[in-house]
């Protein structure tokens, strides 16, 4: 167990380093720097801006400042701080280049709960639709209900989330005004975006779960359970379900990453003030610090979720040996 976690941590560190370094190299090589593009700045202003964001430092020093954990800036970034620590290793994502006097940490802290709520609700939809649909399909294979569930799942798989979102808004917010078209703040604001975000994954979960359940239901050990006189519902719940959940759980890591990605678009459509919209705005406005910060946050989130998935895997299936897997 400890070796598994250690190995994971090592890979995690390597990935974070790769993200930071790639981003940094790209940032350094943007022609003209982030501020000088559109309009020519006055030389003194440009010098002040460059000094403020350390753009006048040599590359290695900027890199170390970005990476941390020591703050190489003797004045502190905003002049009023003189922190000893700074940079990514000190969990400091630096100042935003576009939002004046706001650090990336503050922006992330503001927006992450919003995105987390959206993501959790989307995951809920994915599991609800997936497990429900898969269960109905697998317990009554070949019936009209099964066919319906499978057609819906195929449709869900082939429609991208932004199209699902557009159609949902058209139907349930414009034609029949049940939900708000966009915005954030109440529960009804959450329903449409989280559904649009989660439904395609629900379609995939339904497929996985149906196949998994049909597979486990035909296993010898299910026959053994019936031979023991276990009641039908218990045969499904206790004997067939856990095995069928294994592929679903291993898909959750991928799904979580996909939901994070999808949130970029969904937050934009519904004008939700989440981390994803900050990221897109940051990327479009060349706020590299913000974009890199969010990328790092999402990398951490995906890693963390994958770790949880692997641990859940080991809990469900005693045959999984994490030491060997890692």
């Amino acid at each position, binding site marked *: 167990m400890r070796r598994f976690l250690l190995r994971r941590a090592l890979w995690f560190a390597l990935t974070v380093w790769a993200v930071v370094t790639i981003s940094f190299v790209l*940032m350094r090589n943007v022609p003209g720097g982030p501020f000088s593009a559109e309009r020519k700045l006055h030389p003194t202003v440009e010098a002040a801006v460059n000094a403020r964001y350390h753009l006048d430092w040599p590359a290695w020093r900027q890199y170390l400042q970005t990476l941390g954990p020591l703050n190489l800036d003797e004045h502190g970034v905003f002049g009023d701080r003189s922190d000893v620590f700074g940079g990514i290793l000190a969990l400091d994502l630096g100042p935003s280049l576009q939002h004046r006097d706001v650090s990336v940490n503050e922006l992330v802290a503001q927006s992450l709960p919003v995105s987390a709520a959206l993501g959790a609700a989307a995951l809920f939809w994915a599991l609800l639709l997936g497990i429900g649909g898969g269960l109905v399909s697998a317990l009554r294979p070949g019936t009209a209900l099964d066919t319906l569930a499978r057609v819906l799942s195929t449709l869900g798989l082939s429609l991208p989330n*932004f199209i699902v979102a557009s159609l949902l808004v058209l139907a349930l917010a414009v034609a029949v005004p049940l939900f708000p078209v966009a915005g954030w703040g109440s529960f009804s604001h959450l329903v449409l975006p989280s559904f649009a975000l989660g439904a395609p994954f629900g379609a995939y979960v339904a497929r996985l779960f149906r196949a998994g359940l049909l597979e486990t239901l035909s296993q010898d050990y299910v026959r053994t359970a019936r031979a023991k006189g276990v009641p039908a519902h218990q045969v499904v719940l206790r004997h067939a379900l856990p095995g069928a959940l294994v592929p679903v759980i291993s898909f959750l890591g991928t799904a979580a990453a996909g939901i994070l990605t999808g949130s970029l678009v969904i937050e934009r459509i519904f004008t939700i003030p989440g981390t994803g919209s900050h990221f897109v705005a940051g990327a479009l406005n060349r706020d590299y610090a913000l*974009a890199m910060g969010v990328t790092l946050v999402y990398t951490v989130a995906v890693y963390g979720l994958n770790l949880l998935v692997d641990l859940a895997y080991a809990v469900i299936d005693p045959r999984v040996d994490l030491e060997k897997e890692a």
Partner: protein
Amino acid sequence: MSEPARKSEWFGDATFERVAAQLGEPSQSGLWADVRRRLRSNAAARWSLRWLFALVLVSLLVPLLPLPSPAAMALDKQPKPPVAPWVEPYNERYEPYYGELNAVDTALVGLRRKAFGKKQTGPWLGTDAKGRDTLSRILWGSRTSLLVALFAALTSLTVGVAWGSVAGLASARVDNLMMRTVDVLQSIPTIFLVIFLLSFLNAPRPDGSPSFVSRETVFFLVIGAVSWLSMARVVRGQVLSLRSAAFVEAARSQGASTGWIVRAHIFPNVLPIVLVYLALTLPSVILYEAFLSFLGLGVESPKVSWGVLAADGAEAINPLATFWWLPLGPALAMGATLLALGLLGDALRDALDLRRGER
């Protein structure tokens, strides 16, 4: 007791015959004939193929069709709703403005002008806020999606298959190194890096000069770079399991060379899974393109893609005025194409009998 001996000779003959029959049956041509037959008997696969074929044909020939130009604007204040083809079959307001076109398309557009002159189809699917014809934009937009799909297919067929087979056939250490590279690339949420990358390369130059690589080139490179990863992983897994399969061991024990084993055993058995994965990669790449275009990081105006159209459509939704045709058109086109690819992939998987539990 002479009887048992006689019987066992019988037994030998029968076994030999049975084995011979089995050996003769599932030859390679037999397998593919079987696959073709199973695909043909699948109605969903047939319709999917027809749709995809029609789409490819139309997107190749779209400059020839008497459509309005996708870039020609009419400064209306509002998007115009669809007009049924029988109400306004055509009008004569054709505006030959396309932005930049390559030589072939310029020639095709020239032909179109000779053939149809100022005639163009009516706004059968309506127009957008800038007065551009929706139908024409959807059809022109399909070219981007298909081009991206083609490019990704080529990348995963060349880079992905090569990377995977080399990793599968190479020594454990090389294999480990190659697959760890894929691991790291896959565990970075690539879309973020991609967006990051594109936004850098989109940055305007201080001297106004065009960058040394065009944004579209980068866009394609990026899509190529992410599309081969799962293919490499799948091919490597299949090659590894084939390497230790009983029939390969048998061939090796009879002194077959590595080249022969790869040609006769590994290649034919990797091919089905490569095909199936290709069918899975295409929709995801089309989605990827749409996703990036949706965020404004894809093709640049006056070029269009389905993602651009979907984004325009999503923006046009508001509770005050319903421009429903703007989101609906691209949604249907894209949904149908992705559905066709998905159904085809499923049918292929069924025909090749590659999924055991899934029915």
